[in-house]
């Protein structure tokens, strides 16, 4: 087991390293100069001012040496300072990461709480109206672009019913209730899409498992179909569902861009977007790296969890 963990960790670190090189290179190739953005619309076209600030920020050095000094800092846990605010990038990340994780967690909760029952229903009543309806709802959730479901949610809950704020963010420490109220609609917007994925996966996996010998045996012994499904089939059917959730949870984090923009949620994705628009290199690198690290961490955890549950995974790795 230790060997398995070591191997997974090693490959996760390797991925992270490769990713950071790709990130660094692509960011520096973007058109638009961070120095001009810092200097603004007027001083930004003054060559003297541009040259001076470029030198001050060390942006005149070759990209390779910039990368090495950044990577050197990274090795010591130093992500640099934001070009715009002069504050350590890590401070900003520490503020933003929990907010994005909260959004992902909210979305996941919605997806699982709605998606699992929907999937079970679709499998149980396969071919019957209830099951077909459940399947259609699942595909519909899966097909609605996040911004479309988001807009419809705002329309219904905020404009017509007036029960939830249409967007915004309030710190939990200031007003816990309002904080949670602000979290509801974006979580739903993310969750509804993901709900479709969970429901479809649950349905397919459950149908497969129900056809397995041990479930058939249980039924032959006189267990009702419903009991066989919940007691024997469901726990096993959930393994691939968990895997899918793990894979997609990381994606959700990168994909919160639209939701954070639509609901004005100051998370990691909106930090990445605003840093990108301002060409704040260190902040871009830091936030992307954080997104990557969380992504890789989640898939690592899922791998390990699966390895624990299913010994075959441990050895199957080629």
């Amino acid at each position, binding site marked *: 087991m230790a060997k398995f963990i070591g191997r997974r960790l090693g490959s996760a670190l390797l991925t992270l390293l490769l990713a950071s090189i790709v990130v660094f290179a692509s960011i520096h190739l973007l058109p638009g100069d961070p120095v001009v953005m810092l200097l603004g*619309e007027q001083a930004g076209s003054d060559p003297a001012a541009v040259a*001076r600030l470029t030198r001050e920020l060390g942006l005149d050095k070759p990209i390779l040496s910039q990368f090495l000094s950044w990577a050197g800092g990274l090795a010591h846990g130093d992500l640099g300072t934001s070009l715009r*605010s002069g504050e350590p990038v890590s401070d900003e990340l520490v503020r933003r990461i929990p907010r994005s994780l909260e959004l992902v967690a909210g979305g996941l909760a919605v997806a699982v709480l709605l998606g699992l029952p929907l999937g079970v229903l679709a499998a149980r009543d396969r071919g019957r109206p209830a099951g077909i309806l459940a399947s259609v709802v699942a595909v519909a959730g899966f097909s609605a672009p996040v911004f479309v479901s988001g807009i419809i949610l705002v329309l219904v809950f905020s404009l017509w019913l007036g029960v939830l704020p249409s967007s915004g*963010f309030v710190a939990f420490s200031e007003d816990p209730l309002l904080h949670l109220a602000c979290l509801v609609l974006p979580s739903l917007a993310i969750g509804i899409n993901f709900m479709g994925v969970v429901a479809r996966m649950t349905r397919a996996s459950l149908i497969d498992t129900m056809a397995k010998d041990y479930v058939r045996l249980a039924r032959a012994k006189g267990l009702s179909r419903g009991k066989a499904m919940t007691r024997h089939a469901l726990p096993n059917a959930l393994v691939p569902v968990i895997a899918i959730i793990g894979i997609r949870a990381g994606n959700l984090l990168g994909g919160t861009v639209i939701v954070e923009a639509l609901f004005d949620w100051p998370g990691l994705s909106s930090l990445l977007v605003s840093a990108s628009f301002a060409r704040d290199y260190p902040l871009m690198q830091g936030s992307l790296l954080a997104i990557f690290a969380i992504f890789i961490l989640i898939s690592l955890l899922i791998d390990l969890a699966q390895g624990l549950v299913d010994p075959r995974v441990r050895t199957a790795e080629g």
Partner: protein
Amino acid sequence: MTTTTRRSFSQAALAAAALGLVPGLSGVAGAQTPKKGGTLRYGTVTEVASLDPHVYGGSAWRVLIEALYSPLVGYNAEGTIVPRLAARYEQPDARTILFHLRPGAKFHDGSPVTAEDVKFSLDRIIDPGSAATLRPNLVGATVTVIDAATVKVAKPEDDATLLGVLALPEAAIVSRKSIEGGANVKASANGTGPFVLKTYEPSVRAVLEKNPTYYEAGQPYLDAVEVRMIKSDDARVNALRSGSLDMIDFVPWKDIDVLGRMPNFKVDSSGGAFMNIWFNATRKPFDDPRLRRAVAYAVDREAISKAAFFGHGSPIFGPPTPSDSPYYVKELDGHFKRDVAKAKALLAEAGHGQGLNVELVVFQGLGIYTTTAQVIQANLKEIGVNLSIKLVEWANLLERKNTGNYDAMIYGVSMKLPDPDVYTYYFGSDSTYWAKPIGYRDEVLEKLLAEGRSLTDIAKRKPIYAKVEERLLETSPWVFINYREQAQAYRRNVKGYRHLAGALNESSTGISLPTMWID
């Protein structure tokens, strides 16, 4: 001494007049007695990422900087220049100002404001290669410490705008000790303003608290101000409507009438920045003024005002001088009333009667830009010009602007200075803002502008600036489209706010804040 004082007063009045300042459109405080205490929750569209007081960073930046810092002199709500950190000043000639510092003024950390701090602050702006917004206005200026409480600022030639420039919030006085001590001026503030920075999260939120040692006795009235940066228009408006904010800036144009009709809110609105088409006037095809004028005649400014600004974007048919300014020339207004036939004729004269394909560079992030662009596109199609719209990010737009890499672009311009000399800032061949990157030079215009700048008498300046504007319409390096109204909305219990028009518009909150209160 008396004469110089009188001179300075007349100059202040001149600067105020130049603004076309209509004293507050909003209800004036009146006879009500201010109530002390309370927190103002203010929602703003701008994401303030840096608090450097010398580098302009949007309208919310101005609110924060005016609350946290003070310049030597400043504007009041009437547009008059009044003492701030300088208790008084004298102008021995039209190129020199002597500032006498206010005794007892302190930075937020308790240290006194000295002449050394003033010199350090202004030198930080003047320094060639500095990013400071006012650097171009102060080129060649020298700052001399006369004694611990006296500073002399001098320019190499007569300059009627010097005092007005130093009264802008971007001329804030910073503490030499804390900056040289390595304080991060982008994320912290050791100023002298009515409020102290309590907490700050870049692009998200800032909390200000009352400065107990503020030099204006009894001010500010408020205990605290919370500034929340909410980029989404709907989110900002909804936060006000649901009561989680007391006041918002940049009321979306579509909501100005809606909020104005609600009994518990007040909306103050006035013309602020103005929208333009900028041409690269030094390369084909727009190096031909006839073609630029053709565009000016073809654009349907009323349609833009309606579609992009919901009627809150009064068209500019002449030069961008409001009708209440002393420099307003009636004969020039209405110059470019829409005239498709004239536009076609000019186009043919310029040799493009067969049609023309050009590209318009447009910022992708704001609906007013993309909507305006599409109306212009439809307008120009009518005269046979095929305009393709190129949407770009802000960083890309700035790069294009700075390298002259565009045929035409839409650019919103806020009033940079309360003086018609602002045309130098826009069109002077030394202006890094627009003219310099494309190498544009209009010697006729520059001669007129230099003449205007050296004069202090408004009666003498007026005919010169009329000629300046006439020249601008004739050459049309920019097509002026419309003013975009800037509106603030607030709950009725917010008192003491005065909405200012013209160049001081962005300072409305900053100027009002020390004497605002919540009833």
